[in-house]
């Protein structure tokens, strides 16, 4: 038994992908944890910002939504959606967006809108929000997913946010100047995208997870041959996450 939860591992694994100086577009939930812990542990010069316009808040208490008053306090600047999305897409910034989704396909395109038909679906989700914009405009995107066959699908019910589209150079040909998903962080491991084809493969499994488990829980064919075991969370990482970032365990549960 490990001394940490899957949620903790996910937040830390995603946070490790952040570089110092990055500009982090955080949503609610896990993405808030990942951005915050990265900044506190190894990327002190990273900036966390929110689509609502809060830029670099003090985050003494964890916001539960991107419009939470806690994203407006101690900030460098309080602005609005227009300014936030301008920053997200700014060509000179390494903006990293953290997204979640209901479905993902082999090229990292995601669905957060509906299951079934449109506009009258079987299940309605909240919709794009800023996800489509982040996936279109950010320097890179990190996606959180629960690893289930029904979520990793060959064909999305609705393509809300563009990933590598049909793979290869299709994203670039479609007119996007940069971006694309960097990684998919799940409760089993970390998926990345092949250099040329841009198809998803298993890059890392968490300690105690077998690569085959990932294949079984993925609804499309996935290369698990290159998987290495992810590094266990460090003491300092866990301490920061638990004591500084989410002491009330509002998101960690």
């Amino acid at each position, binding site marked *: 038994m490990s001394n940490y939860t899957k949620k903790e591992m996910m937040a830390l694994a995603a946070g490790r992908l952040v570089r110092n100086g990055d500009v982090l577009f955080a949503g609610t939930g896990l993405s808030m944890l990942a951005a915050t812990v990265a900044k506190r542990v190894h990327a002190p010069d990273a900036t966390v910002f929110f689509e609502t316009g809060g830029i670099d808040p003090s985050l003494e208490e964890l916001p539960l939504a991107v419009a939470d008053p806690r994203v407006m306090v101690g900030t460098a600047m309080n602005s609005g959606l227009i300014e936030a999305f301008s920053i997200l897409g700014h060509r000179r910034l390494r903006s990293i967006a953290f997204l979640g989704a209901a479905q993902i396909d082999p090229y990292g395109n995601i669905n957060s809108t509906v299951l079934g038909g449109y*506009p009258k679906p079987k299940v309605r989700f909240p919709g794009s929000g800023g996800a489509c914009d982040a996936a279109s405009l950010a320097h890179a995107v990190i996606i959180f997913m629960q690893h289930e066959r029904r979520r990793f699908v060959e064909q999305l019910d609705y*393509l809300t946010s563009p990933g590598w589209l049909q793979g290869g150079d299709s994203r670039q040909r479609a007119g996007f100047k940069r971006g694309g998903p960097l990684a998919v962080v799940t409760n089993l491991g970390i998926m990345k995208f092949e250099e040329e084809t841009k198809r998803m493969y298993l890059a890392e499994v968490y300690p105690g997870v077998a690569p085959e488990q990932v294949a079984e829980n993925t609804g499309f064919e996935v290369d698990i041959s290159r998987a290495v075991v992810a590094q266990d969370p460090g003491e300092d990482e866990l301490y920061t996450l638990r004591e500084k970032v989410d002491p009330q365990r509002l998101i960690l549960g």
Partner: protein
Amino acid sequence: MGEDNTLTDKIMTAAQAVERFIPDGAQIALGGFTVTRNPMAIAREIIRAGRKDLYLVCHSHGQAMDLLIGAGCVSRLEIAYGGTGRFAPTCIRFRQAVQKGTLKIEDYSNYQMSLRFLAGAMGLPFMATKSGLETDLVRKQGFDPAERGQGKVPSKKLAIVENPFNGPGDRVILLPALTPDVALLHAQYVGEDGTVRIKGLGFADLEQARAADRVIVTCEDIVPREFIRLDPDQNSLPPFLVDAVVPLKWGAHPTACHYYYDYDPRHLKLYGDMAPSDDGFREYLEKWVLEPESHEDYLDRIGVKDLLRIKADPVLGYAKGLDRR
């Protein structure tokens, strides 16, 4: 100058504002974002007034939108996101209405909707962006083609064209401007001269207000002219863009109003528990919208204890250490 600009003609009750500026079928831009500064008191008044066929245009909206949809006031919606964070990852009555097909809906992204409001605010016909190329936001239409161009329904959801400043093949999305009939917003301060000041994040409230034909502002406090004009860098809207000012303390409850009060986790959880079933939602409406004889009566039902629980720390602007589980 401006000594004679007073609020006299603009100050009114929520009921008067709804009566005067929100007819059935109106296209409405809701201010706020998910759990903050929703124009809740006006939303409750709209329900009490029995408005029908409203046409909401929203970026990311939560509590006010869900209440209006649940109460059957809304028939058409353009939206990017419906949710209130962990209280309702997807807005409850919104979700049900879409799944039942009782709501005409068109999906955009947050930036797309914000740009559409900004275009309306600046008097521009459309905005051009690459955000959303190759997605179903672009490919799938929610509204019936036969309704296109009728009333405020745009003639096209969007258009994809070549960028005339680049070589061929460089495609961009054109998004039609939004010019709502009414914008509703909740502000902390309105000056005696009608100037509006929002504290904390503005979201897209100002673009929405500038884009609209009419603007209804509910506010926590009316403040002296000398105060609001001492540092005009901080102000949000000039008097001549505001049609109705409705002083309503705690007017955004159960959503937050920065420096005044936090969102109310207990009430939002109560809503989350009651709203999923039709009976539960009806009961919620009865108790919290239809029965209260006034806004003060509504607040009485919430109770002083809960109001004080969420009262904002004067420096931080939110309720420090509030139990939000």
